[in-house]
């Protein structure tokens, strides 16, 4: 299986190893094996594989991870540039947590 990798050196993922408690939750939720465990703390092993889904940040009980999460979807970016909501892409990138969807 060829491992697909997107652009290099662009991902916003950061891990504060001082805050990390080593619970390993981030390793469990990451769909691209970006994080690995090093004795007592996690570390970022493969940053370029990160797709900024934000699963690790959301599930980190220690708040040790930061990432500007969003959906890597050009259609959604174009829609937001044009001030449209939703559109063709299933995912829109309104990051506010109001739970508003492009329902109507």
């Amino acid at each position, binding site marked *: *299986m060829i491992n697909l990798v997107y*652009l290099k050196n662009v991902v916003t993922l950061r891990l504060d190893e001082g805050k990390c408690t080593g619970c390993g939750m981030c390793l469990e*939720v990451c769909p691209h094996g970006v994080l690995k465990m090093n004795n007592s703390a996690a570390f970022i092993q493969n940053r370029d594989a990160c797709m900024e889904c934000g699963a690790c940040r*959301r599930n980190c009980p220690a708040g040790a991870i930061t990432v500007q999460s969003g959906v890597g*979807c050009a259609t959604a*970016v174009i829609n937001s540039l044009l001030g449209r909501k939703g559109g063709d892409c*299933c995912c829109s990138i309104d990051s506010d947590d109001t739970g508003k969807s492009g329902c109507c």
Partner: protein
Amino acid sequence: MDKNKNGLHAPSAIKLPIFQDEPCCNAVKNDVTGATPRLDQPFITGTIPTKAGNVPQVQPVLTRRDRWGSVKARLGIDRMNYKVDPGLYALGNPDTSSPVLVTANYKMSFDRLRGGLPGLNAWILVLDTKGINVWCAAGKGTFGTEELIRRIAASGLQNIVSHRNLILPQLGAPGIAAHSVKKFSGFRVNYGPIRAEDLPAYLAAGMKATAAMRIMTFPLKDRAVLIPIEFVEAMKAFLIIAPVFLFLGGIAGSGSFGANAASHGLFAVTALLSAVIGGTVLNPLLLPYLPGRAFSVKGFFLGFVIAFFLLYLRGSNMQLWSGRAEAAAWFLIIPAVSGYLAMNFTGCSTYTSLSGVKREMHWALPVQIAAGAAGIVVWFASRLIAGE
């Protein structure tokens, strides 16, 4: 983020069940507390009694009607309204010790789950994600912590099962803070495998996923099923633009309108259609083998190959300026179109980051617009030259 700094005694850190009832044109206004799924949904085969009332029952077998629904959704027919009612369902004949699986109320997500579990008895808790799949809904936050906590309470789950474990798809993790769910509902979130078909193995191993179950891949089959929706969406634009090119191809040139339209106009339509196929069919199929990391680059590459191929077949007279200009035009337009469509496939892929997409678009979108616009001007000029 700062939820945890406040310590354990800060329930205000999370907005618990406050129902912002946004009026929604097609939503049935019944989906708040205590709501149970409607029993007249076609896939429900009965009810089973529990301490929290009757729970609608579904089977781990998909009917022809379910499969046809999936086909239609893949083609974009009524896709945004392909839903099941949120709430708790019984898969087979579950009891108090059966596992609880959580999913989205997109019908295809629901069907994937129950169809992948032959012979298993389980509870399925469906969250209200407005008919969006788990992954996209988690990104939006509708497959989220609050909705999960609210659904657990509304379904009376604590009275239906004796254990306190939930199994969520791993791809729901961007929307769910497992530690908050535990804190506010008492239920422990276990992230299951990415693919529903791995669930039996995950359950058999005592809710343990192998490393391979946790990695999201993007194999040919997964890319191929996305082609119809991409192609259909692009064809909507194509059907508007194609007649314009057919007409413009006819109005200038030495021959009659009909002859010109048949030659230049029809070639234009063929070229545009080939560009659409390049961006929406060939790009997904050949994705890992195309050069470049940026999707636009993959699309540009396909566009150049297609343009070269079409112009070779056309065999225009390259001695004439009109022939050269026409060739140049298509070397601009076809890559612009296929590059743009390929770029839009980032949203369907399973590995592009938003930061990466923004960086790509920053240079690629202007290039696509400029090449497309320049190509149209050059093409029309080639028609005018030919008319002299």
